[in-house]
Structure formats: C-alpha cells, structure tokens
C-alpha cells in the first residue's frame, strides 16, 4: 500500500503528531517523576515470600484472568477487555504505520486491524451502555469516564472507516483526516484524562505485588522455613 496523500495530510500525519507526541511524553515524564518522588513505605519485616517475584507476577496479572475472582467469574468481561486493549494498541500502531511504513499495511494486515477496531467499537458501545445503565457503575462514573469511553468508541469507528477506504486504495479521505485529527487530540488530551491509566498500572501492580508477594500471599516462596512450616 502507498500513502499518496496531500502535503497537508502528510504534515498532520507526521510533524503535528511528533510535536503532540513529544508533549505527551513530557507530560508522562512529569507525571511519573512526581509519583517516583513519593516515599515508598518501608518493609522491615522478615519476608515470607519474594517481593520481586511478587511484583513480576502482579504485572503479568493482566494476562492471568484466573488469578483474580473478579476476572475469573467474568470471563466475557475479561475477553472484551482483552480485545478492546489489543485494538487500542493496533489503532495507535496504525497511526504510526500509515505515514511511516505504509508498505506494512497490506490488505491482510489492514483487515486484521479493522476486525479488532470493529469489535472494539461494539465493545465500546456495550461499555457505554453499561456505564449509563448499571447503577453501581453509573454512581461511580464521572463525566471523564463517559467522555473517555465515548471518545475511544468513536476513534475505533473512525479508524475502521478510514482503513476501509485505505484498503480500497483511497488513502486521503475525510475519514483519514478525522482519524488523524482525533489522534492529535488524543495525544494532547490523554495525559490529563483517565485514559492515561496505563501509566499508573505498573505502579499499582508493582506496589501490590511487592506487598502481597513479600507476605507470601501471592508468591509463597519463603526465604526461611521458620515462617513456613509446610516447607
């Protein structure tokens, strides 16, 4: 596939994106450094388990739906989550691949991306419905929660249609313009929204894994049999 588009669209796809990406990276660096400045609670107790192994296990928790009752008993919800987040990665990936390595976006690859975007769009609709209609979800939802899921759902839909035209050798359409304008908006908006939760995910999971791993709850490799009579 070739990306034969106007100079204006190419400017949006490349220079504008790079500037916005740099802004996003700067915001994340500030965000992460602010969190890293916070003191870590000390752990002076003799450990029953391994804190480092616990942290690694905890980070991989996202791939182990059986490890938490909340995902174990909600398999459908977990599968939705998985597809949705794979679609996020692919959609963001498409915004890089289209301008930088358009030859990679072959019909087969484009169709695969479209399948995930299409599914994620449907999942997004279901999640919007859930947020509006399930009382315990609605009561905890802020406007940012609604806006974020609606924005993502529209983004998937736009990306899907833009790629449809791309597949049909129409790389410059209004849909592609909207797709990249939305990407630009995302890069500027996400650091300030709940969508940036993936930056916080490692912190939460590592904190959890260190605490519960060290105590032998999630990682039972005891350092000493004093603390584990079953050894």
């Amino acid at each position: 596939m070739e990306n034969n588009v106007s100079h204006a669209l190419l400017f949006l796809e490349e220079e504008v994106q790079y500037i916005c990406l740099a802004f996003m990276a700067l915001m994340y660096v500030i965000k992460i450094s602010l969190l890293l400045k916070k003191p870590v609670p000390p752990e002076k107790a003799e450990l029953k388990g391994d804190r480092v192994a616990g942290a690694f296990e905890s980070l991989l928790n996202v791939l182990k739906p059986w490890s938490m009752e909340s995902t174990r008993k909600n398999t459908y919800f977990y599968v939705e989550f998985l597809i949705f987040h794979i679609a996020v990665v692919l959609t963001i990936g498409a915004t890089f691949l289209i301008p930088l390595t358009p030859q990679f976006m072959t019909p087969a690859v484009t169709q695969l991306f479209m399948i995930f975007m299409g599914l994620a769009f449907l999942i997004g609709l279901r999640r919007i419905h859930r947020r509006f209609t399930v009382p315990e979800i609605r009561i905890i939802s802020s406007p940012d929660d609604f806006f974020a899921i609606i924005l993502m759902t529209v983004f998937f839909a736009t990306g899907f249609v833009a790629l449809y035209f791309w597949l049909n050798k129409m790389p410059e359409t209004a849909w592609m313009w909207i797709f990249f304008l939305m990407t630009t908006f995302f890069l500027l908006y996400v650091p300030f929204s709940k969508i940036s939760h993936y930056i916080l995910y490692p912190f939460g999971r590592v904190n959890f894994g260190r605490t519960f791993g060290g105590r032998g709850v999630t990682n039972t490799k005891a350092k000493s049999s004093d603390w584990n009579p079953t050894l």
Partner: protein
Amino acid sequence: MSEKAEKLGAEKERQWPTKTEFTPEMLAEMEKLLPSKLNRVVAASLAGCIHCGMCSDACHYSVSIPEDKTLVPAYKADKFRKWYKSRYDWMAKVFPSFVGAEPLTKELAEEMYDKLFGGCTMCRRCTVNCPMGVDYGMMVRAARSMMQQVGRVPQHLQDTVDTHYNAGNNMAVPQDEMIETIEWIEEELQDEEGCENFKIPVDKKGARYFLTLNPREPKYYPLTIQATAKVLNAAGVDFTISSRYWDLTNYALFNGNDPDAKLFSQWQVDDVKRLGCEYLLAGECGHGYRALRWELPNWVGGVPFKITSVLELFAKLILEKRIKLDKSVWDGTRFTYHDSCNIARSGGIWKEPRIVINAAANDFVEMEHHGPESFCCGGGGGALAMPEFTPRRIAAGKIKADEIRATGANVCLQSCHNCTDQLKEIIEHYHIDAKVMNLAELLSPALVL
C-alpha cells in the same frame, strides 16, 4: 501477689479530644496533613482507579447490602479521591467536576467519615480483585488517619486506643489482676487430667516464645488461654507470658494514628528484649497478628527477634509430630473455618490453619470463599468498636452467614477475637445453628497426653 502493681502505659494519661462534626478549622488542618499521607502506594491508589466497577462483587458490604450502591468500594474510596483530585489532578485545576473532583467541604468530609469508618473494614478483598492493584486498605487508613488527627473518629474506637495508651493494654487490665488471672488459669489447667505439671510461666527470662494475648482473653475468654497453654505444654514449647506488655492488639492500625501504633509496638519490642525471647508469638488475633508480624517492624524500624503466630507454631508442632491428637473426640461435629482477613489476605497464613484442623478433626468443609479470597465477616477494621455503625455491620455479615450456613457446619472455627464476636452476632442474627471456636479450643480436647 505481694509486689505493688507497676503502672504501665504512657506516663501521662490522655483523652484524645474527639468531635461530633467537622468544623472549618478541622478541614483546614486536614488540608495541611494530606501531603504527608501520600506515600507512593496511597498516591498511586488514589490516582489509579479507572471506575471499572470490578470491586463491586468483592466487598462484603456491597454484596450483602446490594440495594445501597454507595457501598461499592470505588464509590466509598471516591469520597477521599474527590478531595485528592481537587488538590493534585491536573484536569481538575481547570474542570474539577469533569473528573469528579471536589474540594474538602464539611459535607464531603462527613461522607468520608461515614463510608471510610462505617462502611469499610480495610479487609483488602477489593484490593486483590482490582485490576489496577489499588490498595484500598492503605488508602482508607490514610484517610482515617487524617480524620482521627483532627478529632473526627468514632468515640469508642478512640477510647480503645486511649485505654491502651494510658494502661498498656486496651482493656486496662491491671498488672496484678493479669498475673492473678494467669495463676488461676494455670491452676485450672493443672486440674485437667494429664496436665498436673503444666505451667504458664510469667516473665520467664530467656524463654523461646513470648506469647501475646488479646485482652478479651483474660477478661472474657480465659479458657482460650488455658487451651493454648495446654497445647504448648503438651508439645514442650518453652514459652512465657509477660506481666507487662502482653497485649498484642494495636487499634491504632484502625484509627490510623501512627505515633500511637509505633508507641504500642515499641513497648512490646522493649518487653521482648527485657525477657530475652527468641520469638514474639502472636496469639489468635487477626489484626494483632498483622500489626505484630507485618507492621511493627516498620513502625519501630526493625527488630532483633523473630515474629510468628500460634497458627504457624501449631502447624509446625503437628508436622513435627510433637503433639498427638485423637480426631475421634470430634466425631459427629462438622467444622468450617473462617479466614481472618488480616491473617490470610494481609498476613499470608491460610494453609497452616488447615493443617491444624485436618489433624484434629475428620469432618471439615470449606466455605465457598476461603483463604485469601475469604469474605470479611464484617468485624474487621475496628468495626466492633464503632457501635454507631452496628446495623450496617450486621447487615454486611450476611454473605459470611450464608456461606457458613451452606457448609452445614456445627462449628465455625476462626483465629481472631474480632471475628469471634462478629461471627457470634451474625450466627445469632441470621439464625444459624453453629457455635464459634478458635483453633486452640479445637486442639485442646483432642490432645493425647
């Protein structure tokens, strides 16, 4: 006892000034305190919630009282989070309501008080079910800590801490009364067949294990001390009980007052050093075990001795065949076991109780949720010391009551005195035909001496 009883606890007595409502001055003080409470775990937990709602099925409050959606963990935590966001969230600086940020007002603070003292036992079941790893226990304790500092704390909970501060134990058991009680229990123990030579040493220097107790034991449940001492004697365990700081409870874990938590811990550390014991041994008490085993070393900056629990010791004695048990004494009795949150989920002990139970009884049935996934009974987090929230506490125990009933057990075993009292209450309230026992009481009659 001929010697004069020693004055234990702090030199100067105090009564923490409590308030019945938040004032502007208290809110201003809380604003000053907030930055000091934001360690990396609390800050990441406040910023990290994505409102996915996965915690709603994890909490005994929201599961047992489904009609009240304000008991969903994310909602409860949001009362604190809204305030945090108003101070630290970037978007909230421009569009506060867009991200659900709210300044700390009297109304928000009162909601925090209601939900974080009266609607959460800091059991961390939502934490282990949170995809983001949000540590609700740490977060709620931080919020409680600030409210307590300014005086907005449940009176009875604060009284418990003040009593510990003033008397050295949370029920103000005088030293002479404690020693007399232990001597009486020792006599009762020696009256049991085969126990004539059993001892309950007090202040024995160089004993291997420094056994700690929950003050409810000498006050209301002396038979549990007798049962524990019987097991330890039968196994030839070298232990002692201190006449000074024998109370393993630390309710400052619940009200969030770190200086008090540290002070109570330091008394115990100094007492273990005084007697030169190798192990600080936590008796059957949920939060007491966690406070000693996992929090005390952090509060005092490390300890020169080891800390363990009687549950681990009992299991060790059984695996090393140092005690012999006759299971037939419990024939006809079905047991189930309730895992205290602070022992299993926050403490890492859930296999050991099962070693003990399976060695002493033939008929043991697990509840649907057990081990680290066990539901809180509703008595954790100091809930039993907050009578103003009693109806909600009893209602929140329904899921546990239902699970006990489903096992068909005659006896619900547990290893925590707060759980004991809560389980007894919910068993009666929900009309379940079962009694509540701890593990020492299970082992004691089955001992072959």
